[in-house]
C-alpha cells in the first residue's frame, strides 16, 4: 500500500449567489470541487499538482491536510484518515499556503517559532537544532528578531516555510509557495525543497502555476481539471503531446531572399532579425534549416523551444478546462 491512498474523493460546495443587483433573494448553487478523484503517492516522492484556477487543487490539499471533510471517498495517509484523526495526522505534516500567513504579524518571527515549538511539543534541543538547520538553509538567521510585518514578501515566504518544517514533517503540502517571489528567492526555494526532499526523504506535494518550478522540481506531475484527474506521469510525457512548435531567429550577413521558404510560415522582422515560427508537424527542423541556408549567408541563429506556459495553456484549452 502506498504512503498516500486517495480513492474516489468527492467534495461539493454550496455557493450562494445574489439573483440580481439589490435583490434580497439568493440562489444556491452546488459546485462540485472534486468529482471522484483517485491517486497514490509513494513515500519520498516530489510531486507537482497543476491545473487551472478552480480545478480543485487547493480543495484536495485541504482535505489531505485534515482541514476539510469530503462528502465521500477515502483518504489514507500512512494509515490515517486526515479529517477523522486530525490532531494525530497534522503532527506529521507541514503545510504552506502561499497566500496566507501562519506567523504572528506584530512579533519577531522567533516568537512565532517558539509558539510552534510548544504547539508541537518539540523538545528544546531538537527544536533548536532544526531551527539552526532551517535558518542556515533558508538564510533567515539575521531576520529572526524582526517582526513579520517588516519582512519583504520573499523573506516572509522563507519564514513561513521554516515555520511549517520546524516539527520535521514527513509530508509537506505547498500551495503556491512561489507566489510573488523574485528570481533569487524562487531559486533558493527550489534548492531548499530539493535538499529537504533528498536529505530527509520528505514527501512533497507542490501546487503551483509556475511551470518552471514544476519542471525544475517534480519528476511526476498530476493535472487536475474540473475536479478530476486528467494526467498523471512525467512532465516530459505530458508536454511531448503539446510541444509542437519552435521559433527560430536568424540574422543574415548581407542580402537574403526568403522566397524559397515553404508557404504558410509565420515570418516577422525585428531590426536585422528574422523571426520564424513553425509547427514541427508540418515542417521538420532540418528541412527549414536547409532552406534558410539557401536563402542567404547566416551570421547568427537560435532555435527556441516552445514556452512551457503556452504548452500548458494549449493543454488546458484542448482539455476544455
Amino acid at each position, binding site marked *: 500500500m502506498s504512503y498516500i491512498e486517495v480513492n474516489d474523493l468527492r467534495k461539493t*460546495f454550496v455557493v450562494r449567489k445574489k439573483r440580481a443587483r439589490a435583490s434580497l433573494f439568493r440562489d444556491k448553487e452546488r459546485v462540485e470541487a472534486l468529482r471522484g478523484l483517485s491517486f497514490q503517492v509513494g513515500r519520498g516522492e516530489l510531486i507537482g499538482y497543476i491545473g487551472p484556477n478552480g480545478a480543485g487543487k*487547493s480543495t484536495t490539499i*485541504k482535505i489531505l*491536510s*485534515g*482541514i*476539510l*471533510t469530503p462528502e465521500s471517498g477515502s483518504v489514507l495517509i500512512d494509515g490515517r484518515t486526515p479529517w477523522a484523526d*486530525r*490532531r*494525530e495526522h*497534522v*503532527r506529521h*505534516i507541514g*503545510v504552506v*499556503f502561499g*497566500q*496566507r*500567513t*501562519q506567523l*504572528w*504579524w*506584530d*512579533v519577531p518571527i522567533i*516568537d*512565532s517559532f*517558539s*509558539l510552534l515549538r*510548544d*504547539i*508541537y*511539543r518539540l523538545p528544546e534541543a531538537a527544536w533548536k537544532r532544526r531551527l539552526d538547520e532551517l535558518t542556515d538553509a533558508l538564510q533567515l538567521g539575521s531576520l529572526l528578531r524582526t517582526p513579520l510585518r517588516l519582512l519583504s514578501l520573499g523573506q516572509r515566504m522563507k519564514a513561513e516555510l521554516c515555520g511549517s518544517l520546524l516539527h520535521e514533517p514527513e509530508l509537506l503540502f505547498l500551495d503556491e509557495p512561489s507566489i510573488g517571489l523574485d528570481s533569487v528567492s524562487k531559486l533558493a526555494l527550489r534548492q531548499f525543497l530539493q535538499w529537504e526532499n533528498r536529505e530527509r526523504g520528505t514527501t512533497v506535494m507542490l501546487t503551483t502555476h509556475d511551470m518552471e518550478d514544476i519542471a525544475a522540481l517534480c519528476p511526476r506531475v498530476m493535472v487536475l481539471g474540473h475536479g478530476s484527474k486528467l494526467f498523471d506521469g512525467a512532465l516530459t510525457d505530458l508536454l511531448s503531446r503539446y510541444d509542437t512548435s519552435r521559433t527560430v531567429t536568424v540574422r543574415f550577413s548581407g542580402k537574403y531572399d526568403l522566397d524559397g521558404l515553404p508557404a504558410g510560415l509565420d515570418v516577422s522582422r525585428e531590426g536585422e532579425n528574422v523571426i520564424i515560427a513553425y509547427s514541427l508537424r508540418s515542417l521538420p527542423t532540418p528541412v527549414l534549416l536547409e532552406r534558410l541556408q539557401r536563402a542567404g549567408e547566416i551570421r547568427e541563429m537560435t532555435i527556441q523551444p516552445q514556452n512551457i506556459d503556452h504548452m500548458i495553456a494549449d493543454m488546458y484549452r484542448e482539455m476544455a478546462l
Partner: protein
Amino acid sequence: MKSYLSVFRLRLRMELQYRGAMLGGILCQVFFGLILIALYRTLYASRPQALPLESVVTYVWLQQAFFRMVLSSDDELMDKIRTGGIAYDLCRPVSLYGFYYARIAAMKLTGSAMRAVPMLVFAALLPKGWNIAPPASIPAAALGLCSLTLGLLCVTALENISMGFTMRTLDFRGIRAVMNLLMTLLCGNILPLTLFPDSWQKVITLLPYAQLLDAPIRLYTGQYGMDAAIRVIGLQAGWTLLLILLGTLLWRRNRSRLTVQGG
C-alpha cells in the same frame, strides 16, 4: 496544555506592544468614569438613593477599569475566520476551541490589567466623594479577585461562542453589535446593576453577563455575606462550565461543515 499557555503568553507579549492604544483607552475610561460620577452626584444631591453614593462611585471605577474585558475585541481572529486564515490553525495538533479560548483570555487579561492598574491608582487619589473605596475587608478583596478570575473565564467562554457563530455567518458585525449591547447593559457598565429595581436585579444577576464584573464588584464592596458569596461564586463556576461546554459543542459541529474562504 503547554501549547495553550504558550499562545496565551505570546498574546500577552503582543498586547504589550500597543502602548499608545493603552494610553488612549485609559484617558477615555477615566473621562467616562468622571462623567458618570458627576451624573450620580447630581442625582444623589436631588434625590438620595438607598445605596450609598460611595459604593456607586466604587462600582463605576471598577467597571471602567476593567472595561477592556467587557467588549469583544479580537478583530484579528474575526478576520482570520472571515478570510480563511483559520486554515493554518486547523493544521495544528491542538483543539481549536482551546487555542482560541487561550488567545481571547490573554487579550482580555492584559488589555484590562494594563489599564486597570494605573486607573485604580488614579481613582484612589481623587478627593473624597469621587474616589474609589478600598475593599470592604481582606476576605472581600480575596473573594473579589477570585470572582474576577471566574468572570474572565466566563466572558471568554461567551466570546468564544460568538466566534463560533461567526464561522457560520462570516460577518461578525451583527453578532458583535448585539453581544456588546447586551454586555455593556447587563454587566452593569452603562448603569450599575445595583441601581436597577430589586425585582430586575434578581433576574439580571443570574445571567452570565453579570458574572463578569458585577459579581466581583459586589464581593469587593462587601455587599454579599459569606453565604451569598459562596452562592455567587458557585453560579459563576456553573455558567463558566456550561458556556465552555456549549462552545466546545458548537466548534465541534462547525468542524464538520467547514468551508475555508478565499481559495
